[in-house]
């Protein structure tokens, strides 16, 4: 019995390049660009500007956010309000939410040839849930169904810069957001700072293994956006997403 069980553990860590799970091979014409980073790193602003640039250019795109599926919203809200969530159920609920978006939006759009922009992706779960002491191996397996992004921009800002941006604009931190479930500190702001520091360390760990494109979150917004657009153009053939020219109606 132990023998059979240990094989299950071994097969969880599949080598790179092994075709697996829902999609046997990378077979879709779409492309996926994601932004990651701690709160206050500037990632959402930058993705918004990238989206505006592409929208104005008329490209076929879809924008998706972490934690936005109505399907599991009520469960997440209830769990948070009543503080019922453990690191494991917190992680699973977010994975269920992501699975819903992945199966109903992201994958069909990638197959339909869309450029999909995602504000946070599975790396958010990897960083945050490992900071909550979930097993990295378990998490990597949990999200195995997610397509790998074409580009993952990691907006990296020093902890103090990011935390100060958040604290100056939004002083009311929520219980789980501040990591209060981990008893890091009785002071919510201090707990938030420690938690964000742990998440930042987890993001840094993934830079190489997950091929993050590191962006300096302290640079001026417009300068950063210029870099981002250039990188997208160099990596993705945007003409694939250009508006299709309609055949001219014969006169």
């Amino acid at each position, binding site marked *: 019995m132990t023998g059979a*069980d240990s094989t299950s553990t071994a097969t969880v860590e599949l080598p790179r*390049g092994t075709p697996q799970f829902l999609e046997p091979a*990378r077979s879709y014409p779409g492309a996926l660009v994601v932004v990651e980073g701690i709160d206050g790193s500037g990632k959402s602003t930058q993705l918004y500007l990238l989206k505006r640039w592409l929208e104005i250019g008329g490209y076929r795109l879809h924008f998706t956010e972490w934690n936005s599926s109505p399907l*599991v919203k009520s469960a997440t809200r209830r*769990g948070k309000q009543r503080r019922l*969530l453990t690191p494991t159920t917190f992680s699973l609920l977010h994975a269920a939410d992501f699975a819903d978006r992945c199966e109903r939006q992201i994958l069909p759009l990638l197959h339909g040839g869309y450029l999909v922009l995602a504000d946070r992706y599975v790396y958010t779960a990897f960083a945050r849930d490992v900071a909550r002491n979930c097993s990295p191996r*378990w998490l990597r397996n949990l999200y195995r169904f997610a397509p*790998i992004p074409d580009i993952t921009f990691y907006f990296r800002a020093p902890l103090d810069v990011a935390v100060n941006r958040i604290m100056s604009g939004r002083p009311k931190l929520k219980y789980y957001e501040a990591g209060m479930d981990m008893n890091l500190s009785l002071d919510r702001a201090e707990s938030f700072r420690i938690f964000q520091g742990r998440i930042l360390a987890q993001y840094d760990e993934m830079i190489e293994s997950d091929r993050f494109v590191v962006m300096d979150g302290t640079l001026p917004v417009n300068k950063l956006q210029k870099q981002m657009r250039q990188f997208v153009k160099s990596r993705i053939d945007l003409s694939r997403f250009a508006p299709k020219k309609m055949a001219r109606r014969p006169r």
Partner: protein
Amino acid sequence: MKPSRSNRINGGPKQAPPPAGTTPRNYGLPLPGVNDEEFGGSLIVIEGMDGSGRSTQISLLTEWLESEGFAVQTMGLRRSGLVAKDIDALLAENTITRMTLTLMYATDFYDQLEHRIIPSLRSDFVVLADRYFYTLIARAAARGIQRDYLHGLYEMALRPDLTFWLNVRPEVAFEREFRKSHAISYWESGRDMSLSNDLFQSFIMYQAKIRKEFEALAERHGFLAMDGEASVATVNAELRKRIAAHLGIQRTHYRPSAALASLWR
């Protein structure tokens, strides 16, 4: 440059190998914040399809164990405080996809594990599980989700002390269920899988798939297979014999009280 790669997330940063000397009570990983060597109690699982007599046996076993002086807690699918209602609502619509449903059931399972089973085991209860994650694996695998993915998902679950599998032929289960509720559940007949438009056919085909998954699980996890078509009293006597041996109960004689006498047929 377009690096060659698989299109699914895996790997990640180099991870420390799992600690040597695996913990006996989980399937490879402890739950965050839980040391499962710290608590006692017994976890006894009864698996079997609807109509196999699971619930009847659990009612009888609960009464028997309580009469023997054991404190009993029960668990089952879709009974968590966290998401049971949400799963009910999701099942009522047909927009839910298989991965989402799989993960919602996993949430329901782990919520009960952490908030019900583990606290009960810490208090030295006997936990009787009316189905366990094995059913969840069988259902998801029957719908094409990879088995090793599913085993990885439940790697932090506790290993039961005993797992009984009540075997019945699908035809018999169908008849029993139909007699009881005059209907067969949409999900229990696998109608989301478009196997057949005929409800009976669909039920039989679906249960055959589930059975195949269970046969593999039975071998892997050492289930004790029992003839679920035998009389309630016969099955109950066999269950009591095994459980008594596990818990060190000397005398296994039992007759149901008046309240449960109707089950004893």
